[in-house]
């Protein structure tokens, strides 16, 4: 597709369940980011992938959160044993390598809204 695609767009789950959120970046973009957007909290960095380099996981809030990127393209963010405070919009963004290195312009998807009951 032309833009960053995220699925599902909405997810409602019960506390304690595991969820997976998917991101399909723009073709050819080597950099991929996950951010979390909570009301009044702005955007919180979670994790960054760049090509075959080790990901920057410094923003993951707990060991219940993990992410992988297979084949340098699609990424999955997994939240285990979800808690109510995990409710937020999870945004994925991608960028060409040179664009990131030189300017940091990111292309965002529309997000996955997660509600934990």
């Amino acid at each position, binding site marked *: 597709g032309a833009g*960053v695609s995220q699925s599902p767009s909405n997810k409602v789950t019960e506390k304690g369940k595991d969820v997976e959120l998917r991101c399909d970046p723009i073709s050819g973009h080597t*950099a991929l*980011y996950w*951010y979390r957007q909570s009301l*009044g*909290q*702005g*955007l919180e*960095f979670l994790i*960054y992938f*760049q090509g075959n380099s080790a990901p*920057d996981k*410094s*923003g993951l809030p707990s060991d219940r959160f993990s992410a992988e990127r297979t084949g340098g393209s699609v990424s999955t963010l997994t939240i285990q044993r979800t808690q109510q405070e995990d409710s937020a919009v999870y*945004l994925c*963004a991608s960028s060409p390598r040179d664009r*990131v*290195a*030189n*300017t*940091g*312009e*990111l*292309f*965002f*998807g*529309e*997000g996955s809204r997660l509600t934990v009951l």
Partner: protein
Amino acid sequence: AQSVAQPEDQVNVAEGNPLTVKCTYSVSGNPYLFWYVQYPNRGLQFLLKYITGDNLVKGSYGFEAEFNKSQTSFHLKKPSALVSDSALYFCAVRDPRGGGNKLTFGTGTQLKVEL
């Protein structure tokens, strides 16, 4: 560590009037600065950036921003606001030396332009 502050949760302005959305930053080196806009139920869209050069940068939809190193600010401005400018605006900073490729965003400012 890099950080950015947007001191106003909401800015209200009448259509046709100039608007300013404030942003201040903190980095250890020379910053890369960005503004993004988020329309309702949409992802963020890049608006403009400052990397180097002229302190006044121009972006999409008639927006501009001024980099002020002494005040560590990067306020977003537009000479004449439109109702369609109503959206959530985020300032972001990257420290290319100390922050890697991570962009740090502010908490956002809701801009409301009224007739």
